[in-house]
């Protein structure tokens, strides 16, 4: 099994001055130098992936991931357009973006990849990638900052990312493009007059940097709401990046931190900070917020047949997957309803426990449950359920180092053969039918949860 890791982390500023006007102000020049130093640290780390969480790319429908392998355009800042234009041509790891997208969905998040010519990559990402990866040698991935996301959603986003880093064996650098205090002067100022907007902003910035230089990243994460109230203008994105960066670093308080520069850009507090995973200090935690692996918050605003949740209070209890010799278990598949693993490896073969359509994390049933908590029959979509079963099978196989293409034999169970066989068969033809395993389809009276289809799979590794 691959074991990727986060080899370095950075906090970097978003404004275009460091690219377009570093000579116009001594502080801007220092930030530029710090950016250049950060680029050298990244180069020396032999990292093979840059991951950017940008606060200047707000999103509404979950989180978005750039998946255009080579986005090219000319970026002009909405406020500081007189500084000039930044031409960019980036090297994006589209495959990693797709995996992160899938893992996010598996953990209950809304997520999607974005691959459209001319998509406007935000100023923070453009500045960060231009300066941290000047020769474009290291592939990158960029994720948006969701307007409505709070701590749990942002944390799960990071954990999904870390899981993909682990699975793909990458040596990754986590980067947040962000300001500290973000209050700018609301009128034009001459470059030589730039300074942090207020003493209060400066004092809070210094406090944040004191924490970071001591490697106490999780403390800053848990102070995020207070920081937002104290020194942040209420723009669309709150002070969320510390949640993401802390989760990317296992919520640690004993990183090795170094502030490479702290200066003002048009009044905002801007810093380049390096956080290395080498342990320092004891890493005790001042606070103790709940940790989360999957997001189960409200996302069913459009709820109809497709998003009715199973009432687990009336259904069987969920179990942690059983650990035994050769067992294969994953957070990307729904939890068992009994004491068994997701799969078991014997020689070159994988035997999967019966797989249904329930979604990992949320336990929702795509296509809807077959009855409500009172046993009243509901309409449901057999095709959506069947597709979800196939997707769950694929995730378990991938966790085992196999794939859907290695499926050898399938036994399918339908609770209503007359009603559902046609739709089930159509999805089969488009998915497993193209792989070619042997198949047996049985009609049964019921399954333990309110689902209409389940499959038992044998595959090779």
């Amino acid at each position: 099994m691959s074991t990727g890791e986060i080899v370095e982390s950075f906090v970097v500023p978003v404004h275009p001055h460091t690219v377009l006007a570093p000579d116009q102000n001594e502080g801007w020049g220092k930030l530029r130098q710090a950016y250049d130093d950060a680029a050298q640290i990244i180069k020396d780390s032999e990292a093979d992936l840059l991951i950017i969480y940008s606060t200047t790319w707000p999103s509404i429908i979950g989180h978005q991931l750039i998946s255009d392998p080579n986005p090219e355009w000319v970026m002009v800042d909405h406020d500081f357009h007189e500084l000039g234009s930044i031409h960019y041509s980036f090297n994006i790891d589209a495959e990693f973006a797709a995996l992160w997208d899938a893992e996010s969905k598996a953990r209950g998040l809304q997520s999607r990849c974005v691959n459209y010519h001319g998509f406007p990559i935000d100023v923070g990402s453009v500045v960060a990638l231009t300066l941290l990866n000047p020769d474009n040698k290291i592939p990158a991935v960029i994720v948006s900052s969701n307007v409505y996301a709070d701590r749990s959603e942002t944390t799960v986003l990071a954990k999904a990312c870390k899981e993909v880093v682990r699975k793909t064996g990458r040596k990754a650098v986590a980067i947040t493009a962000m300001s500290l205090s973000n209050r700018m002067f609301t009128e034009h100022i001459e470059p030589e007059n730039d300074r942090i907007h207020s003493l209060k902003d400066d004092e809070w910035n210094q406090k944040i940097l004191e924490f970071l230089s001591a490697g106490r990243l999780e403390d800053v994460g848990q102070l995020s709401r207070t920081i937002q109230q104290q020194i942040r203008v209420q723009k669309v994105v709150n002070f969320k990046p510390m949640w993401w960066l802390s989760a990317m670093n296992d919520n640690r308080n004993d990183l090795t931190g170094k502030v490479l520069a702290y200066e003002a850009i048009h009044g905002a507090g801007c810093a380049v900070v390096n956080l290395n995973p080498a342990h320092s200090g004891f890493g005790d935690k001042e606070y103790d917020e709940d940790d989360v692996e999957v997001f189960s918050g409200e996302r069913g605003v459009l709820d109809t047949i497709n998003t009715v949740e199973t009432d687990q209070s009336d259904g069987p209890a969920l179990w942690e997957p059983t650990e035994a010799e050769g067992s294969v278990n994953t957070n990307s598949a729904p939890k068992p309803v009994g004491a068994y693993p997701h799969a078991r490896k014997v020689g070159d073969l994988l035997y999967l426990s019966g797989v249904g359509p329930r979604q990992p994390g949320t336990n929702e049933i795509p296509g809807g449950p077959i009855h409500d908590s009172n046993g009243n029959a509901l309409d449901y979509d057999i095709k959506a359920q069947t597709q979800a079963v196939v997707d769950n099978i694929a995730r378990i196989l991938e966790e085992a180092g196999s794939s859907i293409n290695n499926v050898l034999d399938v036994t399918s169970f339908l609770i209503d053969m007359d009603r559902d066989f046609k739709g089930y068969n159509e999805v089969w033809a488009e998915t497993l039918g193209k792989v070619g395993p042997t198949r047996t389809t049985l009609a049964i009276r019921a399954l333990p949860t309110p689902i209409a289809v389940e499959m038992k799979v044998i595959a090779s590794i």
Partner: protein
Amino acid sequence: MYIPSAYDIGNILLACNMAQGEIVAGCLAPHPPHLVYAENPEQNEPVAEGGWEQLRWGYERLRESLKDVDYDAIVILSPHWQTYVGTHFLGLENFQSLSVDPVFPNLFRYHYDMNVDVDLAKQIHDKAHSAGLAVKMMTNPDFRVDYGTITTGHMFRPEWDKPLVVISSNRSRAYYSVEVMQEMMVELGRVTREAIIESGKKVVVLASNSLSHRHFTTESEIPEDMSKEHITSHAMHLWDMRIIDYMKTGQCQRIIDEMPEFTEQAIAETDGGAFTWLLSTLEVPKYPAILHGYGTIIGTGNAIVEWPVYRYKEA
């Protein structure tokens, strides 16, 4: 020999009624890119099966209402050109590019080609500067026009045959409060009106904003599936109807008065200042507005409203 100053010329023009410019109509003209997507214009890459007809029919009625009204230029204030350092104005004669919505790129990838009335933009800019507002002309040719401006511009006049003045949304509400935002936008509206009158041009002014603005956080598999579209909450609906009632009954001062509560409680897109600016350019109308349409888009409330100044101006 007496050489009149620009100030004198302005006064002379003001004294000569025939040379005066005027605002012929003001409109609330929201910009959700879904509307352009559903229209399937040749400029937009994605293809839709329709959707959001109530609002698109509203725009049709607005266009029909103004088809015989003569005007020279359109002035738009869009919440999606967000500036934190003052108010900015597009300052080049033409902008052509591809606009991709950063939030809904699946719906809006629009090839635009629009002309700007730079003279009028500069006149408004200069007047605002004289009034003490922080302003800047945007003259970088690489600048991409925001999708809000383009959506409103397309839905209001898809021919794109009138020059525009495009004004950014100064996010003073984010820095200070709704009250401060209103003071600044009332002033910007006042100088916009003065500049238009002095320009000798006939102009339509457009505020490109929604009303209540709480989005759904999920998108249906088919974005134009209207069985999934509704307001996000009853409270949002009540606020939208209250504001619409004020517009229909000529009580715009009450909108100004209640704007802080509306903006906070309905998470309204009025936070960008466009609506206050619009009402100020129209001198806070006491006559009834025409409601051409109301509908929701991913849960947000949107109204298409016209103040037919041409009907109410003094003889």
